[in-house]
């Protein structure tokens, strides 16, 4: 069979998913709209960010929200040389696990720096907010060193 005989067609599959975020993730997203980041206190007293609905140790329903800072420290990171179309920054950047002040867990987000060699563990970074915020995780555009 020659190439001419091969049938070709575009095939795009898409679904319009919606989410009911519930009382915990819903609260986190609502507060992002005020440029505030909220975690939740676990059974062991640790503050989990983003907040978890159920305690990862005991399974109990968590309810005590704790506001944390939009400033934190990079705990580990990986450099992205060639960003993809859907990445938050259209220039080389870092994905980092960031421990926000007041949180006991690390938060995954992008860090915008000009060069890879600027990236260091324990460097201080601050959230850069998209204005006006919409109650979406992309309200935090990225983190930048301070």
């Amino acid at each position: 069979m020659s190439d001419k005989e091969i049938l070709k067609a575009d095939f795009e599959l898409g679904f319009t998913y919606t989410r009911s975020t519930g009382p915990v993730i819903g609260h986190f997203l609502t507060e992002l709209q005020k440029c505030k980041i909220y975690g939740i206190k676990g059974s062991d007293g640790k503050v989990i960010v983003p907040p978890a609905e159920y305690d990862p140790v005991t399974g109990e329903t968590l309810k005590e929200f704790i506001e944390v800072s939009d400033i934190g420290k990079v705990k580990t990171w990986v450099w992205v040389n060639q960003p993809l179309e859907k990445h938050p920054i259209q220039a080389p950047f870092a994905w980092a696990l960031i421990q926000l002040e007041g949180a006991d867990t690390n938060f995954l987000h992008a860090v915008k720096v000009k060069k890879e060699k600027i990236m260091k563990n324990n460097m201080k970074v601050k959230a850069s907010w998209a204005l006006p915020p919409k109650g979406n995780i992309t309200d935090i555009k990225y983190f930048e060193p301070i």
Partner: protein
Amino acid sequence: MSELAAVVGMGQTKHSSKNGEVSIAGLVRESAEKALLDAELEWEDIDAVILGKAPDMFEGVMMPELYLTDALVANNKPILRVHTAGSVGGSTGIVAASYIQSGMFERVLVSTFEKQSESNAMWALSTTVPYAPLINAGAGGYFTPYMREYKRRFNVPEHIGRIVAVKDRLNALKNPYAHLHIPDINLEMVEKSPMLWDPLTFLESCPSSDGACSLVISSERSVTDNQLPAWIHSTSMRSEPTMYAGRDAVNPQAGSECAKDVYKKAGIKDPIKEIDCAEIYVPFSWYEPMWLENLLLADIGQGWLMTEKGHTSLEGKFPVNMSGGVLSSNPIGASGLLRFGEAAQQVRNKAGEYQVQGAKLALGHAFGGGAQFFAMWIVGANKP
């Protein structure tokens, strides 16, 4: 020699078109907490969790058992996902029972769910692949030709489907968890509702529901005095390919083979006489008489007479879908386990206003895919 297993707890949510108050995790959690409460058990009493739901594409959450681990308190416990399309709720119950019967675990939590408001199952079932006919039919459009064929083959009168639609919705009025509560339901209302797929009208079709159902299944030695156990007498699963030459989709061989097997294992010789009631998977009205025949509860071509004579009503000789069935609530992934669980509630004498008096032996049934996957169990008030 396998261990005896029993259902000792059931929990379900109030099914609805959209439960916007909770996440998927919150929905599943509510049913699991209620099942534990019913069983008078705590989370630490559970050895393993078996999760069932229909295709991941429905909500777009891949491998939801991982995301739901915290909600089901399954950290450091075995957790297993089951997926057999619409029959999954039934299959999940059977898998959980098999872990108890094998002696591996003492108590297993079975959780199933669907949150149909987060996507559109009809489109997820009808993807438009290039060069294939564009069906966009959803489940109703797919199954209606089988129902039409049943009607034609046995010259069944038009009103049979409407009788089922009214009967199941009247039963649902007695079930506080049912999605559809239509107090003034009657034959005329069903007939005058919009025609979806001839002969199926809008009110002869199931709703799309958000909902979850959980069971606790226990080994014989862990059943306590305060629990009312529904003893699992037998389980069976069968499947067949969606399409092959000579397949009879109106009366699938896998379904009748599954029924024969589940009766044989339970020592049942005359199912219609020995079994007191059944919860069978009827998402479209005409499936009641079709499955009565497939389940060997009626002779071929005679199932509709049982429906017409009122034998399948709550007060009838052989009540079917006392809870209101899939026609009244359809959280797809949970719908099979709801059938299995509601059968168990009947023999536990815990079915409230839709209790069949003196029910000792009940059948739970689920089907899925293109009417090709079947799951069944027989539960009893007495030990097998």
